[in-house]
């Protein structure tokens, strides 16, 4: 994706915000409008939506019936029950695709404005730098939510369209009806959404360090990959509970009977820790730096 070709239409927010003192709400609204009207954002959401579609096509078109215990978990279940497409798609997009898109959005937050020279104008209005950071973070969080929802909703629709749907077998071997299954899938999606918030905070902080948005994007994505590699090294066991990706795939605990919320809580607490630490770093850096562009 070319960055310069994307015009951040700053004229949009200015028309509906008061010139002197924009309220947090209108600042957020304009941020969201800019973010979700951007071609790049829409392209990324489209790519995320393509993941469940491609999985469904691959399963539908492949002649051989997948045997259990081969391939990624849940994949073999999809042909029996379309709702498993959601879980499979989330599982596949969680390690790379979602962090990639979040890296792009989070890395762009401050550095993007700085490189376009619009940061100065944003700061002329007495909105306050901290408020701008909060609004930017809320924008990234909104993207995490929409990105996860796009995968989950496309997965549900495609699953319903391509495969039979019936009672869903949980990991424990018990089955639940479609209503409860959809409830559980929403919980899984919320888990994935929450999982991405820590990385978003890191991306926001990195974005305050530079005026080159590509650098911040790449650094954020690299962070996510490096942390997942560290999490896979058994020699670093002591470090694992501190890595933001550590609980990512524990969303499976929501598919057990009885349902276990323990990992949801642990994951949320860990992500909150990352938000607070990197939020503080971002505030320290952004509020004290000289904005030259």
């Amino acid at each position, binding site marked *: 994706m070319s960055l310069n070709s994307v015009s951040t239409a700053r004229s949009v927010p200015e028309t509906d915000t008061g010139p002197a003192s924009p309220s947090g709400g209108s600042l957020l609204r304009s941020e969201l409008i800019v973010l979700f009207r951007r071609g790049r954002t829409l392209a990324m959401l489209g790519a995320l939506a393509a993941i469940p579609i491609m999985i469904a096509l691959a399963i539908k078109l492949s002649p051989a019936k997948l045997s259990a215990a081969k391939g990624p978990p849940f994949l073999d279940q999809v042909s*029996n029950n379309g709702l498993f497409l959601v879980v499979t798609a989330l599982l596949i997009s969680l390690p790379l695709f979602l962090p990639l898109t979040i890296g792009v959005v989070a890395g762009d937050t401050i550095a993007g404005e700085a490189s376009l020279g619009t940061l100065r104008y944003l700061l002329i209005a007495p909105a306050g730098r901290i408020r701008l950071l909060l609004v930017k973070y809320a924008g990234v969080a909104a993207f995490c939510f929409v990105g996860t929802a796009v995968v989950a909703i496309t997965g549900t629709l495609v699953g319903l369209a391509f495969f039979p749907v019936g009672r869903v077998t949980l990991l424990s071997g018990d089955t639940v009806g479609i209503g409860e299954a959809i409830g559980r899938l929403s919980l899984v999606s919320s888990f994935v959404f929450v999982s991405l918030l820590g990385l978003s905070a890191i991306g926001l902080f990195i974005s305050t360090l530079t005026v080159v948005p590509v650098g911040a994007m790449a650094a954020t994505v690299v962070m996510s990959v490096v942390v997942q590699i560290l999490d896979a090294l058994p020699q670093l066991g002591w470090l694992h509970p501190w890595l933001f990706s550590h609980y990512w*795939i524990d969303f499976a605990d929501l598919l057990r009977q009885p349902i276990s919320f323990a990992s949801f809580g642990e994951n949320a607490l860990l992500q909150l820790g990352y938000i607070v630490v990197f939020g503080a770093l971002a*505030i*320290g850096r952004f509020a004290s730096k000289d904005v030259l562009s």
Partner: protein
Amino acid sequence: MNRKTVRWLPVAVVPVVIAAGVLIIPSQAGAAVTLPDKSAQQVLELIQNSTVRQLSGEVTQTSALGLPALPTGAGAPALAPGASTSDLGASVAAPDSTDATQALELLTGSHTARVYLDGDTKSRVQIMDQLAERDAVRNGSDVWFYDSKKNAVTHLTLPAGFSAAEAQAKAAAEAKVVMTPTELAKKFLAKIDPSTTVSVGQDTRVAGRTAYTLVLTPRTTDTLVGSVAITTDSETGLPLSVSVEARGQKDPAFSVAFTTVTIGAPDAALFRFTPPAGATVKEQALPALPDAATVLPNGTTLGDLNPGTMTGKLTPEQLNELKAKLPAGTPVPVVTGTSWDAVVSLPAGTVPAELTGNKLFTAATSAVEGGRLASSALLNVLFTTDGRVFAGAVPLERLQAVAATK
């Protein structure tokens, strides 16, 4: 303080708050517990008089046996297909070839399982693997095993003659299930004899409950076991954790402990298992317990060996008696020593030559005087050059000594 410094203040404060939270919360949980003093005898009675039969809890098992970690779900071939048939007692054939690997996998790393018990006939154990789960559900005479990775169900119907304890043991063996602290504690406590020093350790807190610690220390030095610590709920006598220390190793070689436990009947629906649609269901016949008509490897029947007294099923005592009467040449494991220093020996020819000739076998064992040794923190196995096998939770020297006397 200037404005810029103030902006950096949160960066300094946040890590301090987090560090404080991380350090204080566990230290409160592990705060010293003082319970009314009890003698070792009184703690033993407390455990024996425990009436807890209904509970739900989460169990964590960790092993540091010095075994190499196995990749979970690795489709490695069965390591020892006949391993469980060394006893004359009924043993359920392993459902498929990866089971031995799975059983070994349970002995490495750490595992979490949820346990639900309701009386002696209803139980459910769920091993919580990453993105997968293995379940063993027992409801009366029905035992179900479910493996989510394979989406496979195995069903056993226990014959009426099965006692609750036998059924439990069978179910545990079959599912290769993490043992609960309660079961393991019972095993160790049953073995207390004059060769063991029993003492009361520090009062502690396990799974949020105050607990007495019972420490079993072998008197002999001829064992790899340093000590066994069993904690038991001070209120109900329910064993909450068991940890086995190996000699010369700082971390417990094996420990199993409740991380949460709720005493009371679990939801009855948990014990009602219906195979999910799409799963492969296998009916597993349970081999009958040996009776008078059981044919022995040498062609005679158990009834012939023990004329007149054989009626119905055998008790373990009868089995042992019978083993002693078996004609020479029947491969039967012999146990030397009675307690911590016990060594099990198998005569030559029990272990197939294909296994010992294997490259993997050579890599997993080391050459010692008199044969090859497979060693871990709590178990040594000596394969002598003449094909015999000696195993026990004992040092190599003891294995060699036993081997030399035969």
